[in-house]
């Protein structure tokens, strides 16, 4: 496959591309398998780069704009690299009434990015989710998939201190 002209230079010889190629082959390069291919690509690479999207589009013979449209429509796809660590604050109903909103605001101030973004140094991705299924721990959050709760804005900031530089001053 090294001679495949469709492979962009940045992806050439990337072993993760094999996983994507295998998935497309298994699905017989059917254009309507796009979503499944994008899932595989994101699992392999962690996010969907422009180069990767262009490659998938060319292999499935789909217009680039259509692939981009699908990749941006669904929340489960991300077009930016994820941080080394992730912190997800639950904003489901139970957590929300117990003060999840304040936790999110405080964490956003502490790490300097909005929920849904990754810090400039690539250390931490801050996110929210509508109910992680641990309402008895409300308000709860996860750090690298480990569940913590109940939390306060201060206790949440403390937990992130070891992972990323935090600002203590309140907005």
């Amino acid at each position, binding site marked *: 496959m090294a001679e495949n002209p469709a492979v962009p230079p940045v992806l050439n010889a990337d072993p993760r591309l094999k996983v994507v190629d295998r998935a497309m082959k298994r699905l017989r390069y059917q254009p309507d398998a796009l979503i499944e291919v994008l899932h595989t690509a994101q699992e392999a690479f962690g996010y969907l780069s422009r180069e990767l999207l*262009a490659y998938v589009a060319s292999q499935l013979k789909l*217009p680039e*704009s259509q692939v*981009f*449209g699908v990749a941006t*429509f669904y929340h489960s796809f991300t077009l930016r690299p994820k941080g080394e660590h992730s912190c997800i604050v639950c904003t489901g109903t139970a957590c929300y009434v117990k003060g999840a909103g304040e936790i999110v605001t405080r964490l956003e101030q502490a790490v300097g990015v909005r929920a849904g973004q990754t810090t400039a140094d690539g250390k931490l991705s801050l996110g929210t989710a509508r109910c992680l299924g641990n309402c008895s721990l409300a308000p709860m959050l996860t750090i690298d998939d480990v569940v913590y709760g109940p939390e306060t804005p201060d206790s949440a900031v403390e937990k992130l201190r070891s992972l990323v530089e935090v600002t203590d001053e309140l907005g």
Partner: protein
Amino acid sequence: MAAITLTINNELIGARQGQTILDVARERGIDIPTLCHLEGLEEVGGCRLCLVELQGSPRPVPACVTKAAEGMEITTHSDKLVEYRKMLVELLLAERTHTCSICVQNGNCELQTLAAKLGIDHVRFDYLHQQLPMDASRERFALDHNRCVLCLRCVRVCDAVEGAHTWDVRGRGSTSRIVADLDRPWGGSTSCTDCGKCVQLCPTGALFRKGATVGEMIKERGFLNRILERRRLAAQRRSA
């Protein structure tokens, strides 16, 4: 084609099987407002302006994608429908920034005409005042997201008629935007052929020819049905 009979606004009307309610109504000179609909393009039923009341249906149905059927009883204009249509246009006006006085399309704009026709003299909703970018990177044409109503005419004509599929929509809901290729500046698009079909079909001033003055913005749309007719004839010749 089988003939059917239906009632529109208490008038008994004959139609052909396969026609949409909109086709039938327009043939009879009944004016149902539309925005995303354009003869020659595939219907999307997105703007909802052509909603009509159908006896026996719990909610209004879009006339552009609802096939006429035997015995249907349809109302195209009622207080409720007019109110819905006004609200829809007001919501469009509130979502982006439609300032007619500084728009090249002023006087030749379908959204403006529609609002005037519906007697919209104010908008009951708060304007979002989004500061959206403008893409003037293409040599001959430009795109101003602030004037886009997401009717998808550009997306459809580029895909089905030009065959380039340069345009599509990214995101969802109120954050949706028209994108070229992988959200490149239009000028850097490798699939765009510069044909200008999207510009001619755009109902507002979102897609426009650079350097055009207001008087030059009357759009030429005859090409669409001419091209489709020629293709139909060519296909006929091939199969003959």
